[in-house]
């Protein structure tokens, strides 16, 4: 028999594990979270009808993107936390790693499966959000045209332009992209925590703590620098904190987009680079810890 040939890295193996992980997660009915998102969206849309049209579309966007951000983050943390412990508990990991599969391929496959799930979820939420926003926009346009029927044409066209500017615009897409990136970062972080955690609960709690620290650290940092000054010790300490706990506020580009601010392409690229850096960093840390783990 010929000597076995082994490729150290195989995208095929990673893709097989990723596809299996995606199937596993979809069977867990995590998409029920999307149903709750839809209910919030439709519910808030009905409630917003009582406000003025500009407020209505603005608040609808604000609530929808906020809900999208929270659901994506929760899906990332909860969906990832159980992957490793379950495989170990049910011994599936033995059958996979007893094949010519390296541990880093196994982890990369698991993470890719979650990232695919997040991409599908964010995509579906965006479509749902766009549909609701489109129908509200049409409704508001009809009302505006009816109410301003007697006014001069330039005032009417200005009002219509204003309504359209408050509705869905391409400027929201970088904001939604940043929400997805934050989800990817949290999934990678959760995978890293699960490589040394003793239970699912521990993994979820630690990931949530990092999530809150990540959202608060920018404010805390500014306060610290104001109080303590910017000495080398303070700066080093803050740099270490920033490395371990990512500044998640940097991914909240959607807040700006909702207000109508155009997100500069350079800023979006910087956010993408930062997100990718953290995803790779946490994956590498997970690989290092998991490589030494006794199964």
């Amino acid at each position: 028999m010929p000597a076995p040939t082994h490729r150290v890295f195989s995208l095929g193996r990673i893709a097989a594990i990723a596809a299996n992980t995606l199937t596993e997660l979809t069977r867990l009915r995590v998409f029920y979270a999307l149903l709750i998102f839809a209910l919030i969206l439709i519910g808030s849309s009905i409630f917003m009808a009582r406000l003025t049209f500009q407020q209505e579309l603005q608040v609808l966007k604000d609530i929808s993107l906020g809900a999208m951000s929270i659901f994506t983050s929760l899906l990332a943390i909860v969906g990832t936390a159980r992957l490793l412990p379950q495989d170990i508990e049910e011994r599936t990991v033995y059958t996979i790693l007893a094949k010519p599969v390296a541990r880093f391929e196994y982890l990369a496959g698991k993470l890719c499966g979650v990232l695919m799930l997040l991409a599908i979820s964010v995509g579906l939420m965006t479509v749902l959000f766009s549909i609701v926003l489109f129908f509200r926009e049409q409704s508001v346009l009809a009302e505006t045209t009816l109410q301003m029927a007697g006014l001069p044409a330039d005032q009417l066209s200005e009002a219509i332009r204003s309504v359209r500017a408050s509705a869905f615009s391409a400027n929201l897409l970088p904001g939604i992209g940043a929400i997805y990136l934050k989800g990817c970062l949290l999934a990678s972080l959760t995978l890293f925590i699960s490589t040394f955690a003793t239970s699912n609960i521990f993994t979820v709690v630690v990931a949530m703590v990092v999530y809150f620290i990540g959202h608060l650290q920018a404010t805390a940092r500014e306060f610290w620098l104001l109080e303590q000054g910017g000495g080398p010790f303070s700066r080093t300490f803050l740099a270490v904190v920033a490395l371990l706990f990512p500044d998640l506020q940097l991914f909240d580009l959607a807040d700006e987009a909702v207000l109508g601010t155009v997100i500069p392409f350079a800023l979006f690229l910087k956010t993408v680079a930062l997100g990718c850096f953290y995803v790779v960093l946490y994956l590498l840390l997970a690989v290092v810890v998991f490589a030494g783990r006794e199964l």
Partner: protein
Amino acid sequence: MTEPAVEITGLTKAFSVPFRRGSVVAVRDLNLRVEAGEVYGLLGPNGSGKSTTLKIILGLVSPTRGRSEIFGLASDRVASREAVGFLPESPYFPKYLTGAETLKFYGKLCGLRGSRLKHRVEELLALVGLTNARDRRLSGYSKGMLQRIGLAQALVHDPRLLILDEPTAGVDPAGAREIRDLILGLKQRGITVLLSSHLLEQVQEVCDRVGILADGRLIREGALQELLAVENLTEVVLENASPNLLNEISTLAGKSGARLVEQRKSHTTLEHLFLEATERKASADVAE
């Protein structure tokens, strides 16, 4: 001399206990060699170190001291797993997959694609007798069927060495016999089998050599026939022997200085009795 399928030298594994000093030693200074083409049984009571030894061979656990090799490649190298198939004790496979999907998944992990993968999946389903259940979800499989699909996934990349951890645990006698027959079939095809078990009768039926582990140490090892043979006793099995003939044999033995130790009716095994009864019932049901 041919390369051994498994070679373990001076292997010791100690697990540290959290929040305590010291450690628990699972395997102590173990030397083991499994020759290519043989069926080797690793025996021992629960906690004797069998599973830990198998995990070290597969690179799932790293040894504290010593080394383990598969066909000359160190066990900690991923490439060594190209030649190994493994069935863990009471394995769990995703219940939402069908039998064919499960084998496809493991086949892809081993680099199989396209028509080669499809052909291999069908071949293995036929080998383990699950062709009719290929599209049924594993949630509807019996314990014996799960064990057979587990065996099929272990064989998906046509390994030269098959490692089985308690392959018949929790399986009924008919299922256990099927697995035993499969192991014997694999041996005939030249595949080396290393299995751990505490079901001694089944090991006796399939193994060429056995090693007995106790408290992490290999206390006995050798060819099964040699280990089981009692030097100064000889068995003679007669068919249709009359009482007179038996008396004559006894007298003759006494005259030649030997002693007739035991004379009894030959017994069938309980397993044989069970299988015969259940198969006869099944045949009668089919006839009706």
